């Protein structure tokens, strides 16, 4: 973990296993509470980061527990930026389904739709594996926050 110049940054490197998603969830809970996000936004951030992490684990590295993926949290004054990065080969999102929900009875294909529905910005970079960038802005009612605390 490191901090400086007004923004606080947290870096995590995790094995590609689903059973550690609970650890990610707890870290998000701590960050979003500290930044004074409202409950609905806290849930939205947690759901979205878990979706991006699930993609990294399942599609990026086929649940290979010896591989690692990374999550970076940047606590800026008015927003939280999250980067989820895997260096695998497998994640090719279906962009056609990113703005509309899939068939109700489909058992797959909701991850990107969920992220786009819940975050203010969602973007992808496939230059070196998959990098997902998620942004949640703080509304005025969400107070001064603790980005520099």
């Amino acid at each position, binding site marked *: 973990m490191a901090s400086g110049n007004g923004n606080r940054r947290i870096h995590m490197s995790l094995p590609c296993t*689903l*059973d550690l*998603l*609970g650890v990610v*969830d707890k870290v998000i809970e701590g960050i979003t509470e500290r930044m004074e996000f409202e*409950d*609905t936004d806290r*849930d*939205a951030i*947690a*759901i979205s980061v*878990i*979706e991006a992490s*699930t993609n990294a684990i*399942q599609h990026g590295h086929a*649940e290979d527990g010896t591989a690692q993926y990374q999550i970076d949290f940047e606590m800026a004054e008015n927003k939280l930026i999250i980067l989820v990065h895997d260096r695998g080969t497998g994640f090719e999102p279906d962009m056609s389904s990113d703005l509309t*929900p899939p068939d*109700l*009875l*489909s*058992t*797959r294909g*909701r*991850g990107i*739709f*969920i992220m786009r*529905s*819940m975050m203010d910005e969602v973007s992808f970079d496939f230059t070196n594996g998959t990098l997902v960038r998620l942004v949640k802005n703080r509304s005025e009612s969400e107070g001064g926050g603790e980005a520099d605390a």
Partner: protein
Amino acid sequence: MKIKRDDRESVTILHLEGKIMGGPDAEAFQKEIKALLDDGRQKVILDLGKVSWVNSTGLGILISGHSSMKNRGGSIKLTGVNKRIDQIFMVTKLHTIFDSFETEDEALASF
């Protein structure tokens, strides 16, 4: 995810606990649904009161169970849905295929 089966006359309540997120959860849940269908039990309540969260893979597991049950003339209803799970159900519109009830008694009475 842990699953505990509780038969109440014609209705079976499956008490789920933990997180529904894929991996071994899918096989465990499908095995339980298959066992219910083999036993001729087609009225099922999923008690999610001790489930903290569900990811999109977990949603797929629940949908798969719903489809298996529906194809055999049965149905799955929900109770104990927390705010976070409710939020993901609303966004994905899955609240339109899963009837959800505040209490177990209400869910039992709905069959």
